[in-house]
């Protein structure tokens, strides 16, 4: 388990050991042979069915649909670290607690099933070493079974995963998928941000990289951190240690309906994105999807000067005042396949904006208003109760609106994450990120600033720290073949 205190201790120890060691060049390019698969370490929170870790990590074990074939990446998963396992072990009674209650810590032989209808007494159920029935079912931690089936090492800590039990880095790439787990939840702060240890995982890896003068490509699922300053530090570390750092969610790379993008260099006046879900959750995916389109405007990304998160009736008032465009909202919603309300009742089509139905359907609207330094504005409207999908429309100077749906195919397949896996694999194989991590860095900062605005009673906040500039990839990076 990784706690702040433990991490700081670890950090202090390894930093002091490193203090006098000159930093050598990282050794990229040693595994360019196409025959030998890349050795991958996977680090995550929870390996249960339906978790982000399971859906993405499995793609490197059993392949994924890609370009009309079932693609097996040239990757061998050699080690896995699952934070939840360690947290569970730590949460279980320790040797001392077991001893004073008179319980042996060794596994107990299975007891005969109680007679039909007889409920086990609480005493009989108390078996800390045995998995619960829930854990033995589909909701259980799948990592031991996967380790057995695919022959990777299930590790007790992150350095062990990178070194595969040896004393040197023994992997060619790292995949991290850190998410909330219901049984052993990570804490939240007073802004509602879950304090997921993405930075901590990264730092542990970076320390190993630095100690061994060898750094390997690193993928971080979704935002870099709950904190922009930590995220900035991650990007700086990757630049200093010269390893490719890729991050983000699937939405920027999934299929689009229709298959369109903002033309590179277009003058984008305004964008409106509609989405659903919770705060510090799918809002990140939606903000990043919006960012991957808006960044293509003339001059590239030049940063954000202010944000404001509006809620309740203020959202509709802002629309009336022109803070966001009703035409763009109509256009974005025209791409939705999931209008609720009367459509659920009798199947009819609805012009949710023209009919005025939105305020009735959306009890708790939220608008994430983004003011870019170059005057472009963008708004993410979270419309729980009105729709269930993610759509965008943008107004370009002198052109028609451009609108599309970010197509998120349903569970269990969730094939959008296959689109992301293909990009991750490409990064591992080429050692170049398909799109700049600065996009995810900026989006990390946008979300943090928006949640801060909310915490400050929905005030508009200047964001001088978000003057991040970067150039987008010239070619569209969403999946289209």
């Amino acid at each position, binding site marked *: 388990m990784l706690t702040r205190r433990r991490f700081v201790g670890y950090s202090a120890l390894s930093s002091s050991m490193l203090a006098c060691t000159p930093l050598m060049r990282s050794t990229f390019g040693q595994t360019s042979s196409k025959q030998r698969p890349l050795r991958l370490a996977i680090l995550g929170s929870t390996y249960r*069915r*339906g978790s982000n870790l*399971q*859906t993405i990590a*499995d*793609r490197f074990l*059993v*392949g*994924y*649909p*890609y370009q*009309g*074939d*079932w693609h097996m990446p040239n990757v061998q998963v050699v080690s896995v670290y699952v934070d939840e396992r360690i947290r569970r072990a730590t949460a279980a009674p320790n040797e001392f607690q077991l001893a004073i209650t008179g319980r042996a810590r060794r596994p107990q032989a299975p007891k005969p099933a109680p007679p039909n209808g007889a409920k086990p007494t609480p005493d009989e159920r108390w078996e800390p070493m045995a998995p619960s029935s829930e854990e033995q079912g*589909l909701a259980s931690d*799948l990592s031991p*079974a996967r380790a057995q089936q695919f022959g990777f090492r299930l590790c007790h800590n992150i350095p062990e995963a990178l070194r595969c039990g040896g004393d040197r880095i023994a992997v060619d790439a790292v995949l991290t998928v850190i998410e909330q787990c219901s049984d052993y939840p990570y804490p939240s702060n007073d802004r509602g941000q879950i304090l997921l240890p993405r930075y901590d995982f990264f730092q542990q890896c970076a320390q190993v990289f630095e100690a061994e003068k060898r750094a390997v490509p690193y993928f971080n699922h979704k935002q870099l951190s709950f904190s922009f300053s930590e995220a900035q530090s991650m990007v700086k570390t990757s630049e200093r240690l010269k390893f490719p750092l890729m991050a983000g969610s699937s939405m920027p790379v999934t*299929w689009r*309906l*229709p*298959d369109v993008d903002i033309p590179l260099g277009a003058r984008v006046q305004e964008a409106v994105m509609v989405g659903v879900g919770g705060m510090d959750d799918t809002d990140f995916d939606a903000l990043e999807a919006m960012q991957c389109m808006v960044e293509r405007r003339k001059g590239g990304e030049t940063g954000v000067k202010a944000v404001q998160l509006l809620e309740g009736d203020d959202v509709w008032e802002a629309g009336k005042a022109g803070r966001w465009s009703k035409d763009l909202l*109509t*256009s974005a*919603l*025209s*791409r*939705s*396949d*999931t*209008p*609720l309300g009367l*459509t*659920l009742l*009798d*199947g*009819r*089509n*609805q*012009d949710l*904006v*023209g009919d005025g139905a939105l305020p009735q359907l959306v009890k708790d609207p939220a608008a994430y208003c983004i003011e870019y330094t170059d005057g472009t504005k963008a708004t993410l409207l979270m419309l729980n109760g009105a729709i*269930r*999908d993610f759509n965008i*429309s943008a107004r370009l100077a002198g052109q*028609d*609106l*451009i*609108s599309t749906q970010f*197509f998120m*195919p*349903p*569970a*269990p*397949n*969730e*094939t959008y994450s*296959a689109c992301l896996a293909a990009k991750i694999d490409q990064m591992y194989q080429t050692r170049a990120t398909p799109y700049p991590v600065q996009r995810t860095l900026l989006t990390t900062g946008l979300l943090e600033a928006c949640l801060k605005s909310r915490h400050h009673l929905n005030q508009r906040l200047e964001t001088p720290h978000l003057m991040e500039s970067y150039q987008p990839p010239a070619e569209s990076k969403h*999946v*289209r*073949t």
Partner: protein
Amino acid sequence: MAPNGTPIKRPRLAAVVTSYKKYLHPQHVVDRFLDGYGWNGTYHHSEMDVVSLYVDQRGEGDLFQERAARHPGMKICTTIEEALTLGTGKLAVDGVVVVAEHGVYPLSENGIMMRPHYEFFEQITKVFRASGRSVPYFNDKELSWNWDWSKKMVDVSHELNFPLQGGSSLAVTWRVPSVEFPLGATAKEAVSVGYGGMGSYDFHGLETIQCMVERRKGGETGVEWLQTYRGDKFWKAHQDGVWSQALVKAALSRSATLRPGDPTFTDIFPTIEQMKAMVPDPVAYQYQHREGLLSTMILMNGMVRDFTFAATIDGQPKPFSTQMYLPMPDGRTTLASFFSPLVYNAEQMFLTGKAQYPIERTLLTSGLLIAAIDSDRKGQRLQTPNLAAVTYQPNPKSTYWRS
């Protein structure tokens, strides 16, 4: 407005349907003419009016009264003739929308539901003939459960010289990826993999193949024979390579609803044993086009919930493949948006007086479905001289949803 500044008269449409309830085809289609739909990045209202509606089967759950109350310009009629003449004694509309899917009708001796596409057509063309005038005619899905009647519908449309356009939304919906069969390409083999059962979704699978392969070199040449495979014979044929396993794999790699053969995984390619366990009643209709193309329409109900296509095309190193994406309101969505391109193409026919794609496509697929059910009943390959005579050229312009 017309170029000379005079307002264009809005076409007046008669709708003739089987049953108007939630999520039945008539609701999806007629609602879009009445209430509009999202199209091309805005909320689109058709430039035409449904002025009359005939509903063949009424009952609990009917929605047409609610629709008529909100759209008082739409008159509820008790006969098809009235819907077309509006009591004037002669044809009084500029187009006809027929949706004869759904409703409950008796089964034919081959077990196909005898939906009244032809009966509606007869009554409608009777008004055309009596009025000495014909108008564009939209017919949802197949032509008829009976081949002779299907053929006659096409013949009469030529005789009376009116555009007849129909078929499945599979031919016009989104494709993921958004690709078109190259016009004039030579294809050796094509498959579609879909779901549902015989006599219903098989038609969608057939249209999935046909809207693509009709674009091959020379256009459609007709079908010589057809054979249906089910159960153990299906699996034996699959393993013997009667159809290409590589094409099936390519098609399945386009699916977004591939059921995991191992329940601890969420997206994993199934083994043949897992396929057998998941698909209790697999169906394949294999048929040979006259110039040599071999097509196979496969239903793997229980394993997938979408329609995918793959073909070997000369000069392409790997199979050409895509998914015909249906945003299905079975929990995945709330709107069956694949009806939007179907209705949009119908609107284009009503506005231009020209069919957007050939009715012969639907004649061929209607005939293939009838032959396939016959082949299943007889347990053998059937020669199909009637289908060998269905030759046609495609619309070189793509008509699927991509904007």
